[in-house]
């Protein structure tokens, strides 16, 4: 079991590294190569496959499959609402459930809910596009990283109390901003583009990215981050109670007695 967990951790770490490489690629290459989108699609696609295989292998439990299916439908419908009702900027209700289920039911559950919510909502609204794998991967990471909050909350003895919700809200804020920043990294090579003479010094690159970030998405990301905070503060406690109530019914496996 221990060995398997170590392997799993290695796979998470490596896919994170590959993902980071892909996201930072335009910065690293600084305009030297062309055709980055194809290469990136290849690299991101493969690391996504490896990660998905690992995550799925351990979440394989028929009850979790049923639960993921239904929660994904609910979350995808919530995303519908986001498209239909033009809310403030990048506000999106989908991260709320991704964070909370990742926190309660485990990172793998959160990863699958995150990735599949974006996939399914794209499928039903006809919004499949080249950005989808990046969105799936990033939203998956939101859920996968949620259990990182467990140790500090346990240390604070905050389960079921206010600091727990506070920490979750903070987590939502950070991911709200980070999600936007990461999605930008994936798209700015498109927008700013290869072939264009890119700055060569690191400082110049950072300046350029900052300009790009501030002009294109800072407002959106702030709306998303604070949207997460508001949702978690308002609905976090009752949702956690409901998820925990059902946790036991979903997660056991039957061990026949050896009589």
């Amino acid at each position: 079991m221990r060995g398997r967990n170590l392997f799993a951790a290695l796979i998470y770490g490596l896919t994170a590294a590959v993902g980071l490489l892909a996201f930072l690629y335009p910065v690293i290459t600084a305009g030297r190569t062309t055709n980055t989108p194809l290469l990136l699609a290849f690299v991101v696609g493969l690391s996504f496959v490896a990660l998905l295989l690992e995550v799925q292998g351990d979440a394989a439990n028929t009850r979790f499959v049923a639960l993921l299916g239904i929660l994904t439908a609910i979350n995808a419908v919530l995303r519908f609402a986001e498209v239909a009702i033009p809310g403030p900027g990048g506000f999106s209700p989908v991260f709320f459930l991704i964070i909370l289920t990742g926190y309660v039911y485990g990172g793998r559950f959160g990863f699958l809910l995150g990735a599949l919510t974006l996939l399914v909502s794209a499928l039903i609204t006809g919004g499949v596009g080249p950005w989808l794998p990046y969105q799936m991967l990033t939203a998956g990471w939101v859920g996968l990283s949620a259990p990182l909050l467990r140790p500090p909350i346990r240390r604070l003895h905050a389960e079921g109390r206010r600091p727990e919700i506070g920490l979750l809200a903070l987590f939502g804020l950070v991911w709200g901003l980070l999600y936007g920043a990461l999605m930008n990294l994936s798209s700015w090579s498109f927008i700013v583009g290869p072939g264009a003479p890119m700055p060569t010094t690191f400082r110049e690159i950072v300046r350029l990215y900052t300009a790009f970030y501030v002009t294109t998405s800072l407002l959106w990301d702030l709306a998303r981050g604070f949207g997460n905070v508001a949702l978690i503060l308002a609905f976090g406690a009752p949702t956690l109670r409901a998820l925990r109530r059902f946790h036991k019914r979903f997660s056991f496996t039957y061990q026949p007695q050896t009589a």
Partner: protein
Amino acid sequence: MIHFEHVTYTYPDAARPALRDVSLPIPAGAFALVMGASGVGKSTLLRCLNGLVPHFSGGTLTGRVTVEGHDPVTRGPQEMSRLVGFVFQDPEAQFVMDRVEDEIAFALENAAIPTGEMSACVEGALEQLHLIPLRRRKLETLSGGEKQRVAIASALALHPRVLVLDEPTSQLDPQSAAELLDALVRLNKTLGLTVVLAEHRLERILPFVDQVIYLPDDDAPVLSGPPRRVLPHVPLLPPLQTLAQALGWSPLPLTLEEARHFVSTDSTDSTDETDSFNPLKSVQSVDRTPAVVRARGLEVAYGPTLALRGVDMALYRGEIVALLGRNGAGKTTLLKSLVGLLRPQRGEVQLEGHPIATMDVAEVCRRVGYLPQDPNALLFADTVLDELHITLHNHGLTPSTAPIAPETLLAHLGLADKAQQYPRDLSVGERQRVALGAIMVTQPAALLLDEPTRGLDYRAKTQLRDLLRAWRDAALAILLVSHDVELIAETADRVMVMDQGVIVAHGRPAEVLRAWPTFTPQIAQMFPKQSWLTVKEALAGIVGI
């Protein structure tokens, strides 16, 4: 062949076993009916047959179950799926795919049946359930009855030798339920399939049942045997059998035909009052006070189709009015427009003399309670008591300024000891009463109920009936939309029948119910020349003669 040998099963964290020392055989090819109140372990018993208990429920199981020589506990549900097909209560909660054919093929794909053989299996299953014309339809476009037929076909695709069904008709209207049960009888007779069925609607299938398995609520042992031997020990039975038992008819009649042998022709003399029935004859209102709810010329449209085409009706204090009609006749639409959830294109609704067009739904519902079909949609609080407090809070009230103390209402609903429980842990009947509590806590003047007996067992139905009668006597105006003619026969003061958006009949229960064969209660079918509708009336009549 199925064997239970000294099976005792306890759910995790439960104090008492759900099944206690059950031993019984079910012969191959039998049609076995599992009876008992909600929560006595019918579902548990059925789930032992394919290993869902204990593999999906945890807990401890002792004793031994064998199905065709296999032990579901060691085999597990996946392997047992080849031997035992399983159909569940809620047709909405068992589908994976979007189209009929693909849904039926799902089990075959899991079992890795070669593609060539697969299409033969799918064709067979489609044909047995008369689904050929629906094969390419999307599941979401099917009616409840059609969905359950798809569920049965999916369960049959792998050619199991046993078909297990857990209250498959509880969410269906009587017509679809009857069709479904007929299909089961046919499968049992033509394929020799062993059918094990838990079911509350007994009238239709009793004649075809070979074996009844009765699970009593107390710690008495499980009874199993031919219907005539077991049924006399079952406390709540359909009207026909209740009457037969009260009159000591033996052997117990299972069908109307059998029962008629016990009725001498001379005791059913005609009193010719039913001959001159006029469906729209006006009925004297019970009270001269103004109507609580009144609709005038109500027209409601969904897009281009008119769901209500000019409805006039009134509801007075201290009466129960029943509204009958086929699915899609416009009954739910009428209820929703009476509380303002739907706004009419023409006509108006008045609440105690004031038009509701200017009020919002919350204002109307404080005076007119409405219990929707699925009470689960109401409940989300952590305790039963909280549910009542939430409604009060919505109306700007507190428990102390409420027209009735929440605890008093809960006691009245028989939920006093459940006040601190999680509503979703309760049984279907109890959840419904919690929902009623959440609605009645504002003490409205009228109560509208949409199919309140759906999914209820006989005991929960009896409790609901008594509750409605008590509220009527306390001057509440009640409008009851239901397919349950027995409940209507026992409670209603007036009956209205709706068809294609208009009220086509209106009158006393004895007159209206007899005029439509599908709405005629068993007792009225039994004694066509009398005006009796219920066992009580029949007993009074017969013993009086």
